[in-house]
């Protein structure tokens, strides 16, 4: 059964179209991450799901119920905001029980639910404090607790970790994953941080310009990006793009006067094209000293950046800049002429005109 179904959702702000005919099906208990640069419409989509924005067209179904025009509190959702949005004049307990009191729930039940949420999130000792007396991490826990007590089917997270420092962010990231494993709720999570997306998601929806570019499991998004935008957006440092041509009846990629054999390519059947782009991730390139016919391209080392666990080497080939991940022990002097062995089986070939993966 689908937990959330978005059908042909369109949203316009005046003349500006923010979301365009968007369709999204989320399975029961699935963790979906909406990922994209700022202004791509991901938070807007989340606000539409929550009922905080009225649609221009389309429908939203949650748990088999059409909630397109339902009030936020009638949709069976809980929401966690980037700025925590805790009511400053209420204690933590007051914050947690505010929604339940609005629903006229008996006090005994409220106490039970608050106690359970406090136990799950380990905020029991903080219940009688005001939000101003909490740290950022504690505040976000309370904000999650506020969604938790509502006992809802769907959790919506709007960049919940963006206001935290790096260390807390990774701690809470793990905690959210643990929470999902424990509760099994459907979760929709908006972020611009690809690490959060890759680590948390069952499926990632990469968005740009109000359109979902690709909706797939994190590994698929990473290894087989559907188009040039997704390929460039996911991965740090980002994928190397080699501009060349497909020749020899789709069997070779010509670049910088050499040809790379495409026989191992994992995807569609390449056809000859005067302009094509081969995308290779930094870890899928090997630096070798001797050329191998049909496998390597020549390059010159520009500089290397040791990053602790490994090292990043920047090179140029035919005017294009490339980065290659190598073991940190391997140092290469700038100016060294080397050859790059591309792992074509893990590369992505894009049509230069449509920017789609072949």
């Amino acid at each position: 059964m689908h937990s959330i179904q978005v059908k042909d959702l369109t949203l316009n702000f005046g003349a500006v179209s923010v979301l365009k005919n968007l369709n999204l099906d989320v399975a029961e208990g699935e963790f979906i991450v909406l990922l994209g640069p700022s202004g791509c419409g991901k938070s807007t989509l989340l606000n539409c799901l929550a009922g905080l924005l009225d649609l221009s067209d389309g429908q939203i179904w949650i748990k088999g119920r059409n909630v397109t025009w339902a009030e936020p509190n009638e949709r069976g959702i809980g929401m966690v905001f980037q700025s925590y949005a805790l009511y400053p004049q209420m204690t933590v307990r007051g914050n947690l029980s505010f929604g339940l009191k609005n629903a006229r729930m008996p006090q005994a039940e409220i106490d039970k639910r608050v106690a359970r949420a406090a136990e799950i999130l380990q905020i029991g000792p903080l219940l009688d404090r005001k939000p101003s007396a909490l740290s950022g991490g504690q505040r976000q826990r309370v904000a999650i607790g506020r969604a938790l007590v509502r006992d809802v089917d769907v959790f919506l997270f709007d960049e919940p970790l963006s206001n935290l420092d790096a260390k807390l962010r990774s701690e809470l990231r793990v905690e959210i994953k643990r929470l999902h494993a424990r509760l099994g709720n459907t979760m929709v999570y908006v972020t611009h941080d690809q690490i959060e997306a890759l680590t948390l998601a069952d499926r990632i929806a990469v968005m740009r310009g109000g359109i979902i570019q690709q909706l797939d499991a994190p590994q698929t998004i990473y290894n087989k990006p559907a188009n040039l935008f997704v390929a460039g957006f996911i991965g740090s440092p980002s994928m190397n793009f080699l501009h060349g041509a497909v020749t020899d009846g789709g069997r070779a990629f010509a670049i910088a006067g050499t040809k790379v054999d495409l026989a191992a390519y994992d995807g569609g059947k390449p056809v000859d094209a005067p302009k094509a782009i081969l995308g290779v991730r930094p870890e899928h390139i090997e630096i070798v000293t001797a050329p191998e016919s049909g496998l390597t391209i020549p390059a010159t080392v520009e500089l290397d950046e040791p990053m602790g666990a490994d090292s990043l080497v920047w090179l140029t080939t035919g005017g294009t800049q490339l980065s290659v991940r190598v073991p940190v022990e391997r140092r290469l002097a700038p100016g060294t002429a080397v050859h790059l062995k591309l792992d074509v089986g893990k590369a992505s070939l894009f049509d230069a005109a449509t920017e789609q993966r072949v």
Partner: protein
Amino acid sequence: MADLTATAPVAAMEGARGAKPRRRLSGRNIMIYGTLFVVCLYYILPLWVMVMTSLKGMPEIRVGNIFAPPVEITFEPWVKAWAEACTGLNCDGLSRGFWNSVQILIPSVILSIAVASVNGYALVNWKFKGADVFFTILIFGSFIPYQVMLYPIVILLRELGIYGTLTGLVLVHTIFGMPILTLLFRNYFSSLPEELFKAARVDGAGFWGIYFRIMLPMSLPIFVVAVILQVTGIWNDFLFGVVFTKPDLYPMTVQLNNIVNSVQGVKEYNVNMAATLLTGLVPLTIYFISGKLFVRGIAAGAVKG
């Protein structure tokens, strides 16, 4: 041990602690404080004259030394100003005007602030179609001179059957307070984080639920500002009071004018001074009580956060 190690370096630096010493009687300081003193004197002098005159008897005033403290302190003028001074046919002093003013002030302040705060809240958080146009028109209202609207309002009140009543005047004060107060509240509410409002909606609170339980408790400073603006504004109002009410219902300011400007008999300067001070007492008290909150509220409205 810990103490010793901690104090040792400090002790070594003895004599170089504290702020950089400055000469108190530098030429610069004399200039600044001298100027400040003169300005203070300039501002305090009228008050001094008023208070002193109001405590003197008429014979002593006729001597003509307005700056001198009274030889014989008398509270007679205060009593007379409050309870016996005559305006027209009534000879019960300013007390009648005081109570009239109170009756005008309290409902006007409460009503105008209640309506304006809901206005501001709705304009920020419940954007309806045409909200911006509505707001522009409202603000435009504050640029139209009052005199232009006096006569139409007289007709309006007459048709409503409340011309010359306190209800009519309260209504006028409420309407005229609307533009500036709505602007004040709108700006304050838009400085509150939008996500709080969203969170409250997800929590199932409605229009009034969010207003009373979320917004109001966070808005004390701006309410203090609004109260001060309205109390001083309405208390000091003369024009509306004289135009829209009858002599029996004149507010204190109008009555003060009638007492001070009465042409019959001897000018009782001491009574006039006492009456003026009495009239100014209410705004003065408000400032003294809420000065600190006022500054905080003004700042809160101006800066985000």
